[in-house]
């Protein structure tokens, strides 16, 4: 028997309504309907899928495990590096602020005390944070529009 899948044809009657012959005749006679149905069939065919090589799923899951380990290690390294960077930056900017206050104090004939040192360090930390925030705001990457289209 060369008939198409009867189950699929029975499903089709749900769409075609109580006069399936009429609806089918319309599809056969209407070029617009035919081309739209053809387009739908081609899209389905295009995405029907290709057989993947054996063990592909296991390979992906193993790669995920490796990636997880590498990410954890690099995160740890990055965390230590970031702490060192912050400390160095605060000391550098604080020292600059302190030297500026010493120079200003010399000009005004005032000796810098412990309060000047504390204020300099605080100023250094504040300037570092402000610089970091400003840099982050400028360097935020734009996600590609095609990726964004999949997100809502």
């Amino acid at each position, binding site marked *: 028997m060369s008939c198409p899948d009867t189950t699929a044809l029975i499903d089709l009657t749900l769409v075609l309504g109580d006069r399936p012959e009429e609806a089918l005749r319309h599809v056969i006679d209407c070029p617009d309907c035919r081309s739209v149905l053809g387009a739908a069939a081609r899209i389905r065919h*295009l995405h029907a899928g290709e057989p*993947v090589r054996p063990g592909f799923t296991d390979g*992906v899951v193993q790669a995920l495990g490796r990636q997880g380990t590498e990410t954890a290690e690099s995160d740890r390294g990055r965390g230590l590096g970031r702490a060192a960077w912050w400390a160095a930056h605060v000391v550098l900017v604080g020292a600059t602020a302190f030297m500026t206050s010493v120079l200003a104090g010399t000009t005004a004939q005032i000796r810098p005390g412990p309060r000047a040192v504390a204020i300099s360090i605080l100023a250094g930390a504040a300037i570092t944070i402000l610089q970091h925030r400003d840099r982050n705001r400028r360097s935020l990457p734009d996600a590609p529009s095609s990726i964004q289209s999949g997100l809502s």
Partner: protein
Amino acid sequence: MTDADAAGFRSGDVDAFRALVDRWSPRLLAVALAYVDDRDVAHDVVQDAWLRAWERRGQFSGRGSLLGWLITITRNTALTRLRRARSRDAVSPGELPSPGTPAKPDVALERIAARRAVLDAIDRLPNRQRETVILRLIEGRSTREAAALLGCAEGTVKATLHRALANLTPLLEDWAP
């Protein structure tokens, strides 16, 4: 795949991830093969796409089609690889065909180009039309399921699919499977 797998994937469940990889990789491989003609490279593209999807799983909202989101990542991964390969070719003149070499008609390449044109056309559709095409035609969801995932009426899904197909039809007429 069940919707529970999609939810598990979003929350970082490796078993749900494995189920998704098992289920959707053939579809994603078909997408990758629209951009690269080598099956091994296409497998690498799909693997990279899955790893990127896992890294970014928090960015998927849970609404709409997860497969659509994965297709976009696969397509972008393939395009990035293609661009890198092209820039490598540009600096290695030894691999370029010598002048005067007659161009050979390559059926496989023509087929790749045609598939790519269709995928690019789907990607250029307005977001709602693209989602509807993927849910109804590619995932094979019913109108009711698609409406629930998109948060709209069933009539809207039907009308949107009709508009999307009307947009795609002229592009698909030249493409024979």
